[in-house]
């Protein structure tokens, strides 16, 4: 079984630019999550999709962040415009059932300079 795939693995962009992160969940997993770890802090929830619907987006920091999951398969997370405080590691995870243990991807390390 293929795992959760994220790309790019690393991205360095300038403040004010736009970046789009992609996540391919495990096939058949309806639940897809985005999390973020800022240096020195714990991993924090951003949002949760069930198929193509946003179940919970309470963790999204502000309207510069836009997540989509068209067709209920892969998901993208766009940051526009990026700010310095957006730097961190963005993790995607998927699960077959809500509340079950997730499978995480390896993350995208975003650096905004």
């Amino acid at each position: 079984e293929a795992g959760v795939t994220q790309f790019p693995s690393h991205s360095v962009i300038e403040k004010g630019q736009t970046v789009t992160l992609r996540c391919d969940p495990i096939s058949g997993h309806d639940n897809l999550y985005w999390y973020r770890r800022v240096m020195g802090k714990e991993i924090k929830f951003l949002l949760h999709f069930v198929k193509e619907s946003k179940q919970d987006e309470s963790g999204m920091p502000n309207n510069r962040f836009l997540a989509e999951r068209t067709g209920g398969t892969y998901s993208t997370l766009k940051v526009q415009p990026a700010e310095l405080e957006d730097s961190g590691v963005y993790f995607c995870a998927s699960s077959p059932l809500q509340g079950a243990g997730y499978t995480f991807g390896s993350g995208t390390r975003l650096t905004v300079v």
Partner: protein
Amino acid sequence: EDQVTQSPEALRLQEGESSSLNCSYTVSGLRGLFWYRQDPGKGPEFLFTLYSAGEEKEKERLKATLTKKESFLHITAPKPEDSATYLCAVGNQAGTALIFGKGTTLSVSS
């Protein structure tokens, strides 16, 4: 507010020296207590889920236990390959998200 606190932040052990990691939590309605292992440059890897006080789960040298206020991850006779960051998380009341602690970084030397 739901909160997870892990201790210690870092732990150094000699190979074969057993120990325990602590995860204390406050949550309005526990929807599962999760343990993950994370290696450098990788995403968290699921280990266990515990749902009720008194529950225990084991996997190789790891054993997780749960009380009403905390969970312990016991490591018996650790090996260098057990070196990693161990993360504890609780499910939120809605079941839509996990609330993570900062983790305990374990180093096991031979």
